[in-house]
């Protein structure tokens, strides 16, 4: 066969192949789907704790938590609550330790807009020198009992609260404080504990170092012979607050900021066959307004975690932040919820329930209470899970 015939043949085959390639397509169509065996078809189902008559098991517990992320510091007391502030300045100017006479040491706290208790009531507190090391990054609400302070206050305040309050500190304390730091001592002064006293019946809040506003300051005026008075300020501050208040009932479902109340809510998911694919999960909780106390921020939201260890009450790393649903109801949904429930479906022994953590747990003193399984059906905690059955 002549060579040009051979070339023509391969060119023809190549062109035909190219022409065929774009036609290699399938368009999905519903026609014929009725012919598929039932075992092929998607079995989408919804588990509803209400319909499944699977009431939640709820409880509330206290897990001491650090308050370092708070953007303001509550200080004061009411009939139910007491809140203290810990302050510590570091980076004192060298001049302070080297001599001169301390004329004054003034602490200024800048008020935040939140308060509760007696409206515009006076605030009174003592400032005690702290004699034991602490850090805002590790100090928890149960660390107060182990804190060592001078019994005699180094400063006091008693008066109304406007935009700010000021009080004077003992100059001897300041000298000891600055000397201790410059000498590398670790057993000297470790800041101040502001302890509310007297007839205070209000909790005020003040700007914290974590806020973008004005944290507490201390200004020390030093006089030297033949020289003008010098105002010195330390470079850095650490602060946090420690609150105490009512204790939860174990059988209720509630979360409390500042007091580290956390709630647990668990459901029996045995109605969902193991191995099913969870498409979505949502937890609905209804706020009980009669028990809820919006003392400060009034945020109606919780973080929902998986309880990973019943003994230590530790939680998993994933969480969902609830959003308003309707009326007094909030809802937690999204991929994190789906993943948590998927783990429980695949491993039922890991289903220890959800842990509810107050949004701003370390930053306010609000109580958010929810209806439990004893409430009317429409008010109870409700979990719905959309899942696909395995073939």
């Amino acid at each position, binding site marked *: 066969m002549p060579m040009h*015939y051979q070339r023509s043949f391969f060119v023809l085959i190549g062109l035909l192949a190219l022409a065929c*390639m774009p036609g*290699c397509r399938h*368009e999905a169509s519903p*026609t*014929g789907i009725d012919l*598929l065996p039932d075992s092929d078809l998607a079995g989408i189902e919804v588990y509803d704790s209400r319909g499944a008559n699977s009431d939640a098991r709820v409880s509330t517990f206290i897990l001491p938590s650090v308050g370092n992320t708070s953007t303001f510091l509550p200080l004061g007391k009411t009939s139910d609550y007491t809140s203290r502030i810990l302050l510590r300045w570091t980076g004192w100017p060298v001049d302070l330790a080297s001599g001169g006479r301390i004329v004054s040491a003034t602490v200024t706290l800048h008020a935040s807009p939140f308060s509760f208790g007696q409206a515009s009531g006076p605030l009174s507190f003592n400032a005690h020198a702290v004699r034991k090391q602490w850090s805002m990054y590790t100090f928890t609400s149960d660390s107060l009992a182990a804190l060592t302070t001078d019994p005699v206050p180094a400063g006091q305040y008693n008066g109304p609260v406007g935009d700010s309050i000021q009080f004077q500190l003992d100059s001897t304390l300041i000298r000891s404080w600055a000397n201790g730091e410059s000498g590398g001592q670790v057993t000297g002064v470790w800041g101040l504990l502001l302890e509310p006293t007297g007839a205070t019946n209000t909790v005020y809040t003040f700007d914290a170092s974590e806020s973008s506003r004005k944290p507490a300051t201390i200004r020390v005026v030093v006089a030297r012979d033949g020289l003008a008075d010098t105002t010195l300020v330390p470079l850095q501050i650490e602060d946090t607050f420690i609150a105490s208040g009512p204790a939860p009932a174990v059988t209720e479902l509630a979360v409390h900021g500042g007091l580290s109340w956390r709630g647990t809510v668990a459901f029996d998911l045995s109605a969902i066959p193991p191995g099913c694919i969870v498409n979505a999960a949502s937890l609905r909780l209804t706020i009980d307004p009669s028990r809820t106390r919006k003392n400060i921020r009034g945020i109606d939201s919780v973080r929902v975690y998986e309880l990973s260890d019943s003994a230590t009450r530790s939680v998993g790393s994933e969480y969902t932040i609830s959003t308003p649903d309707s009326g007094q109801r909030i809802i937690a949904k999204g991929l994190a919820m789906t993943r948590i429930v998927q783990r429980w479906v*695949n491993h039922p022994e890991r289903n220890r329930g959800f842990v509810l953590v107050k949004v701003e747990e370390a930053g306010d003193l609000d109580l958010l209470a929810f209806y439990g399984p004893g409430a009317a059906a429409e008010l109870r905690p409700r979990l*719905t899970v959309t899942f*696909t059955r395995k073939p």
Partner: protein
Amino acid sequence: MRRIFLLLLVLCPFAAQAQNGGSVLSRFGIGELDNLAGARQRGMGYTGAAVGSSYEIHATNPAAWTFLSNLRLQASGSYEYESSSKGAALSYGSFAFKSLDFAIPFEESIRTRLSAGLHQLSGIGYELNAHGSEGGKTYTSSYSGSGGLAFASIGLAVRPLPWLNIGAAARWYFGTAEHEMVVDFDDADYFTTTQRRSTSHGGGGYVLGAVLTGPDGLAVSASVATSAELDASRDLHFQYATHDSTVRGADGIQDIPVRYQYGLSYELDSRLLIAADVAIQDWTGARVFGIVQPALTTGYRISAGAEWKTGSASSQGMLRASLLRFGVAHQKLSVLLDGVAQSETYGTVGFGFPVWAESRADLSLEAGVRGASSNLLGSRLMVRFSFSISVGENWFTRREAD
């Protein structure tokens, strides 16, 4: 020439993965069954089991290999288009390599021929979707299938008597059938369901054949592909929001029932040959993963065709060795559609011509109608274009100088 051989060898993996099949019919059994024919037989309406060919390697009748005149390497492919009267959404087109065969003439006194090859046995290819809602959330569920079965074969053919040609080949069936379900919710907060079921198959079988050549250009043939029990193992793949999981499902049995094919051919004169074939395979009791499927039934094909040499002894060039083919066929599919048998009737044309030296090419075009407008899938127009190329070499032929 060596380059052509290498090119065809490169096609081997494609031949093993080849698949057509574009409707939900391919969901059942092992998929839509291939007709196991090259472009030459397709052009003659799928006849040719009794037609001895000097260059075509038969897939269904190893006895016909004795007619091969020299070493052959053969590949074939097909483009298939299906258009339904129910609308464009049911139409599809797909291209697939169908086979790759190799044959060696060992010995000439009884014309011993050894052949090995890869062939597509079935193809799975469908995509369906539906809309639904659950708990107030709407979703789209999609179902698709892919894959199919192929077989590798090796066998021997001899001509112990001048009028008797017999052959046998062993087959190893293999392949994976994939079926996937995806449920996609309209709400972005909902995780998409993806489940995939992969069934792997493996098992052996045999094909035996005979071609009897009579006087005056008459030939008859019979072949039987024995039944086979394939070991099937299933993997289930799930995509969870937390992880992907593949679990090993239960093992099972996949039956391939015995297949019979009979052929008849007659040379009317030196330029015209006519042929007729019948093939039948009963899938009624075949187990698919251990379960008899009610959707399977007996499938058969009846066909007739003719081959005409375009040139005479005095013709020159390409015309002298070219062949024109025609055929008609009617087949009943082995899958019932909603309990109703499906048939296909079509006409074919083909053209065979030399490419160079001992090498030849064949092209075929089939057009037919499958099903009926009253069917769930409607009446479908089927068009298939196929090609085969058979490269010949004389590696094992002693040259005169030797």
